[in-house]
């Protein structure tokens, strides 16, 4: 029986390493390997800190405390996580179908542009009309920007990695042009930023009148989801896993809610959670989600079953771009309340890491974006640390976790020469 590929690496004479594919992966290994990888990543991450003359132990302690150690820290972490989760969900959807949308950053900017176009055109509309309109406009802005590489790939076979990446620069520069040109705040003394959004164009902070409804809505959504998730599981083991995941999720959201009152977290958080729920149902329970999964796993089989690849590539790029657009909309309407030049610190790129580390699972995206949001927040505030430290840690974690995957999929055997 030929059960996959076996690889031999000759390390040095008389000594070699063999990688044998595992048919069955022990459950504990699936968790032990990422945990170990994370530890190794943290150890590697000490190097840049040492170079900077920061004590890594106090550095990590400060980071964790800053990101998760206080109600204020947690709420700021969630603030960073909101654009990551929205864009991450979009990227995860595209990657599910093996459409490599690297353009979430640009789609995020175009979403912010679309939302602001509406907000600046009709600033005096009541919030209950204006905000939904901005959400739609943000989604459409990102979706149209995503449709460009999608259409080019579907009908002309142009590589979407290149086009979506290149479009990022155009989108960023377009928004830069607006903030130093037609949309510049005349009172900004030359600073590259727009006028503040009107009161009705800002996403409400989850507090006051919004607080109780949000908590109730989250609990209801959580209860429905838990019922649905547990019923959907077929094996006891999977059921336990899903239930555990759900408990973690509820604790996180409820814990988050507890800390939200009187902080800055806005409705974009609810938007992100809702988007994850919608995406998860879309993928596993609908005809279209089934097509996406089949095409992602085996495009030829999909074609044989009469599925249209072209249509789905364009559609997936549009929805993916739309979600990234929502990230831009919520960042502007919820956090910044105006557009600054280069307002995103690479959320759209980090979204790729989020999607990948979450193994393209919508609920995983929520979890990972909270962790990476904590990293953004934590590295922001270490005294004496360079801005790039957070990015470096991100990269190291990403590399080590992806590398660790080999240990999950293969068994390593050491041969000493006979």
């Amino acid at each position, binding site marked *: 029986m030929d059960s996959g590929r*076996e690889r031999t690496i000759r390390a040095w004479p008389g000594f070699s390493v063999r990688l044998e594919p595992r048919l*069955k992966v022990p459950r504990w290994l699936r968790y032990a390997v990422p945990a170990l990888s994370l530890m190794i990543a943290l150890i590697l991450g000490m190097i840049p800190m040492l170079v900077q003359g920061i004590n890594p132990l106090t550095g990590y302690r400060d980071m964790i405390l800053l990101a998760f150690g206080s109600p204020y820290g947690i709420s700021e972490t969630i603030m960073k996580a909101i654009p990551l989760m929205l864009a991450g969900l979009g990227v995860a959807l595209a990657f599910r179908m093996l459409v490599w949308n690297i353009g979430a950053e640009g789609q995020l900017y175009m979403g912010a542009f679309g939302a602001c176009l509406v907000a600046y055109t009709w600033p005096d509309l009541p919030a209950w009309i204006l905000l939904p309109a901005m959400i739609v406009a943000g989604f459409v802005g990102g979706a149209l920007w995503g449709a460009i590489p999608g259409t080019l790939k579907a009908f002309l076979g142009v590589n979407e990695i290149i086009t979506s990446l290149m479009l990022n620069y155009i989108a960023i520069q377009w928004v830069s042009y607006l903030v130093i040109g037609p949309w510049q705040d005349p009172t900004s003394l030359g600073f590259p930023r727009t006028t503040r959004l009107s009161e009705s164009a800002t996403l409400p902070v989850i507090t006051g009148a919004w607080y109780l409804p949000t908590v109730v809505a989250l609990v209801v959504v959580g209860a429905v989801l838990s019922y649905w998730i547990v019923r959907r599981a077929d094996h006891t083991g999977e059921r336990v896993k899903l239930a555990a995941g759900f408990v973690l999720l509820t604790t996180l959201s409820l814990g988050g809610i507890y800390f939200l009152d009187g902080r800055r977290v806005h409705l974009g958080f609810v938007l992100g959670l809702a988007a994850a729920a919608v995406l998860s149902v879309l993928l596993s329970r609908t*005809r279209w989600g089934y097509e996406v*999964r*089949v095409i992602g796993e*085996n495009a030829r089989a*999909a074609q*044989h079953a009469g599925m249209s690849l072209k249509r789905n590539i364009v559609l997936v790029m549009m929805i993916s771009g739309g979600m990234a657009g929502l990230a831009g909309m919520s960042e502007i309407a919820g956090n910044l309340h105006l557009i600054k030049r280069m307002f995103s610190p690479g959320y759209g790129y980090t979204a790729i890491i989020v999607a990948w580390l979450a193994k393209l699972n919508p609920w995983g995206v929520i979890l990972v974006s909270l962790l990476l949001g904590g990293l953004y927040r934590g590295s922001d505030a270490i005294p004496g640390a360079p801005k790039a430290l957070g990015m470096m840690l991100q990269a190291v974690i990403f590399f080590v976790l992806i590398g660790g995957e080999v240990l999950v999929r293969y068994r390593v055997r050491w041969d000493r020469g006979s």
Partner: protein
Amino acid sequence: MEDKSPFAISMEGISKRFPGVVANNDIDFGVRRGEIHALLGENGAGKTTLMKILTGLYQPDEGQIRVDGRAVTVRSPRDAIDLGIGMVHQHFMLVQSHSVAENIILGLDAPRFVLNLGQVERQIAKLADQYHLQVDPGARVWQLSVGEQQRVEILKALYRGARILVLDEPTAVLTPQEAEELFKTLRSMVSEGHTVVFISHKLSEVMSVADRITVLRRGEVVDTVAASETSKEELARMMVGREVLFRVAKRDSSPGEVVLEIDGLRALNDKGLEALRDVSLTVRHGEILGVAGVAGNGQRELAETVVGIRGVTKGRIRVDGSDVTNKPAREVMDRGVSYVPADRMGAGLVTNLSVAENLILKCYREPPICNGFFLNAEAISAHAEELVRTYDVMTPGIQTRARLLSGGNLQKLILAREISSRPALMVAVYPTRGLDVGATEAVRRLLLEQRDAGGGILLISEDLDELLSMSDRIAVLYEGRVMGVRDSEEASVEELGLMMAGTAPEDEGG
């Protein structure tokens, strides 16, 4: 006399375990110097694994290999070739855009810096001459036929100084005539003092060329016998552990109306070259039309144009009278055409999805599976449970990922899906390729039942025995043309073989 010659190779107590599978269990295998030794067994019996251990691609968990009586460790194919063992794989490992000579010297240390290709070509020509391996050393590999490419692989091994040649299912891709040529080569190699091991699951060729035969079953050696002292029936019994029916019991057909009408069909292959040239065929309800031919003569394109996933450049295809030429696959499907593709894992199944999800691949748009936008989980499960039971698919559960099923069960899964839609026409390409005897029988029975239920079947196969026993009529494709159509009662293997090689039958007027 051959009993006296010493062992060129002996493998003692070889065991190899893969996660969840014992591929080889305590195997003792000896090849005498100067013999042709066949390694016979069903798919999954462990033949290829054993030979991959011999050539250093796998390391045994236990056991000892001796070459010419000396204990050796073979860590890589490089070690193997140093010991004089060369292997010709089932899938050729050639660089398509390079010439024959360039392929042969690829990876060798010999010309350290300055490459004298002319000299190499002369050496190759000499070798080719010596062993009747006609091939032009200057030709590019992509220009060569499959049979010629195989000769290049053999030359590659010989050029590297292989004294022991291992061939993995060498005849799988050849016409009967090409196979005969290959056997001639093997005999001349043996007479020059080489030793040949070849892997096969075809009884007749094993009987005709091998000196001795070792039969493997489920990773263990059943026996090693001399070809002169055994029979096909005995070998078959050893292979499967029970008596085998060589012909499936088939009732007389009662063909009805024409279900598929192909008229003057032309189509291109993936390289943009014409693969079908003026093909006209008809299939009736309740009839199996077999299509014979060596792989690569337009079979794949024929199947794909009929099911609507390949464009037609000229000609017409009608299903039950309505024109489906260049209609999208979905529309053709809706007309009652189902498809069992050659490449099961690549085109027929989504192996990372569950059995249940694979079973709805063709009906996920229709109620009760789909109600507009949402899929109905209960209906999916019920559908899967029923098909798994009816078609006897062996699976731990309907939520099991398809990749964990055996080859035979994967094929049953596809057939279950494709037959359960009660198709008017079924296009089945190589439906039993790679299956063991038990699964082959089951698949053939399913196809015949479908025929008896009034379905038309276009059966494409490279196995003439299968075509002769299954089909009502047989068409032969050669270079995209129909060489002729025969009633299977009147057809002979020899005549079909000649037509497959491009020789027009004498009694064909036009």
